[in-house]
């Protein structure tokens, strides 16, 4: 008799959006591992047609409530590139500050609320709060400091309103930055405590030879700018992205999967860390290595450590930007409309986010393409599900199921993000 079983979760918790997965196992051999998405599609690329380019930052922000800044940054940079707009340094810095804010709020949410409970064998952060109330209180304080940046620079935490093509609607006064700066200095220690806390967690022994893909910038840890690179020789501009990355319809699933020359790749904090380690401050490099990370870390469970490192980085970077802040002379630079096409990639908290726009001389969008981090990581998540389930196939079913869930959460998937996701036949019962 064959011994067949299916490990499955019908509605994955502690991720953004609606997803499910199943792993089929026969005689202790994994046969199939599938991540299924039942988040209904919303057709953003379709209804961006005939909209005017100035609306793109506001419309695309609505793709994701967790990382709207990423959408606003990728869309503005793509359109500005098309129009040949170069923003002044103060505007550039203000945007980097805004992105720091999103990284801080998103990473602190993921580290403490979505990911850490798995390592502690708990259902949620509220259970953590029962045992370590100070830890969760500080997590919320840190998250709030990130949100405070987005709120001041962007106007509000979710779907900010201050971002526009060419810069911002309104500049931020230097004195408005004072409270922000106090906040940030206040929570700086929490980021170090976070890394310390995460370094005490136990990481499953699981490594793969991944192709990591992230932006890389000459002078800084990447957020808004840089070339797209990998640890396997990729080095391209965003204009070449579609020559290398394909979205394919898989026969087993109705979801679009992104591949790099038909192969799997990995994007997100771990990829950024591995490909930009030298761009982190030296002290942080040393601390990272002392905290359980390796120079080329191949264990996706350690992404929680990398998020903690990036939390330290983002808070200190925000403090630096505010220290050097000069109010832009004008909140935005003016530009002349013309028919053009442009693309950009920025680093959303959970990985690379590609936008491309083609528009006419009136600024009406004729074609738009958006590929979210979660589309990029879809195949690698399935790959990990397969191999992790195989490695831990002897675990009791409940434990294995939880480990599979944790595997997916390693990627901080944002299922709402992926504009392409389709309806699958999943029985919720």
């Amino acid at each position, binding site marked *: 008799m064959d011994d067949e079983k299916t490990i499955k979760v019908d*509605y994955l*918790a502690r*991720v*953004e*959006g*609606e997803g499910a997965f199943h792993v089929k196992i026969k005689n202790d051999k994994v046969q199939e591992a599938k991540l299924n998405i*039942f*988040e*209904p*599609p*919303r*057709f953003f*690329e*379709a*209804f961006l*047609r005939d*909209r*005017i380019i100035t*609306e793109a930052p*506001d*419309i695309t922000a*609505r793709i*994701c*409530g*967790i990382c*709207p800044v990423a959408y606003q940054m990728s869309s503005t940079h793509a359109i500005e590139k098309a129009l040949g707009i170069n923003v002044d340094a103060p505007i550039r810095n203000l945007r980097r500050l805004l992105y720091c804010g999103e990284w801080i*709020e998103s990473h602190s949410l993921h580290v403490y*609320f979505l990911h850490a*409970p798995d390592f502690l064998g708990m*259902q*949620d*952060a*509220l259970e953590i*709060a029962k045992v370590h109330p100070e830890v*969760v*209180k500080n997590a*919320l*304080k840190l*998250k*709030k400091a990130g*949100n405070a940046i987005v709120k001041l620079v962007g*106007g509000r*935490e*979710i*779907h900010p*309103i*201050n971002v526009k093509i060419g810069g911002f*609607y*309104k500049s931020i006064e230097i004195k408005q930055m004072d409270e922000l700066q106090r906040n940030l200095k206040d929570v700086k220690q929490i980021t170090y405590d976070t890394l310390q806390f995460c370094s005490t967690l136990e990481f499953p022994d699981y490594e793969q030879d991944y192709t990591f893909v992230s932006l890389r910038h000459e002078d800084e840890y990447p957020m808004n700018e840089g070339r797209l690179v990998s640890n396997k020789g990729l080095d391209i501009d965003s204009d070449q992205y579609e020559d290398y990355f394909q979205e394919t*319809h898989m026969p087993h699933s*109705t979801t*679009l999967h992104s591949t790099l020359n038909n192969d799997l790749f990995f994007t997100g904090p771990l990829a950024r860390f591995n490909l930009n380690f030298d761009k982190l401050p030296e002290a942080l490099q040393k601390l990272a290595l002392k905290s359980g990370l390796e120079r080329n870390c191949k264990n996706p469970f350690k992404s929680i450590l990398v998020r903690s490192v990036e939390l330290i980085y983002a808070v200190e970077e925000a403090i630096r930007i505010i220290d050097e802040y000069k109010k832009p002379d004008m*909140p935005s630079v003016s530009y002349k409309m013309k028919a053009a096409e442009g693309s950009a990639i920025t680093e959303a908290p959970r990985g690379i986010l590609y936008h491309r726009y083609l528009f006419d001389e009136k600024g009406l969008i004729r074609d738009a393409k958006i590929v979210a981090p979660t589309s990029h990581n879809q195949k690698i998540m399935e790959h990990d599900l397969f191999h992790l389930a195989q490695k831990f196939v002897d675990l009791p079913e409940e434990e294995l199921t939880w480990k599979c*869930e944790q595997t997916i959460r390693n990627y901080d998937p*944002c299922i*709402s993000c992926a504009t*392409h996701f*389709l*309806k699958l036949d999943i029985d*919720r019962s």
Partner: protein
Amino acid sequence: MFPVLNRKPTLAVWKFTSCDGCQLSILDMEDEFIDIASAFEISMFVEATRNQAPGPYDISLVEGSVSTPAEAKRIVDIRKESKILVTIGACATSGGIQALRNFSDVGEYASMVYASPEHLSLMKTSEPIKHYVDVDYELYGCPISKKVLLEFIISTLIGKSPRLPSSSVCMECKSNGYNCLAVTNASPCLGPVTRSGCEALCLSYDRPCFGCFGPKEYANLPSMTEIFKNKNVPEDELIRLYRTFNAHSELLARASKDLEGKE
């Protein structure tokens, strides 16, 4: 008025077609989150916990619009299990930005984004929750206001009627002393017809209102259209202004269709 219970009320948070932003507002209430979470028995909040308890639920917060047959069925089940059902955000109250497809042919949209649209199981339109079931309260906005959400949550706990914003953005703008951009800047501003709740946020950033909170009750859209036309705002620009996050709300949908000369 909410009944005051001699036990912790059970709270369920549900997601339909949406961006997750409105339910994230709950987690974004950093100062109050722990207190809120301990005042309720959280029965269902998939974004935040693996715990899932069966109904009935004292309060259900519903985010997102109904856009698939499965969702149309699920909301009916949730309604049956919920004593008080509250819709949160533009998707749940008006169909959301995804309701832009209601003004087009959904089949055409599907083939534009997907290579094999035959796999799709979609409703022709994206609809607000109230299209399918009775709704007890609606919290507006894209996203909702945390302040309004907090007022609502506290009301449910102490058994009072929640005070929900019902005036226009203009009122908030004037009471905050902001410059009127419609007058000074000749920008098409939706402040006069948009429901309050954001505290005239955009105006405080030198930007005209673009209608995140949807039309105020009894807003006079035809008159608004006339004013914009008199200021020489092009019709196609006006249609776009009316068709964003609350495009499918009754008043805005009618106003934008009027501009197109459609029924």
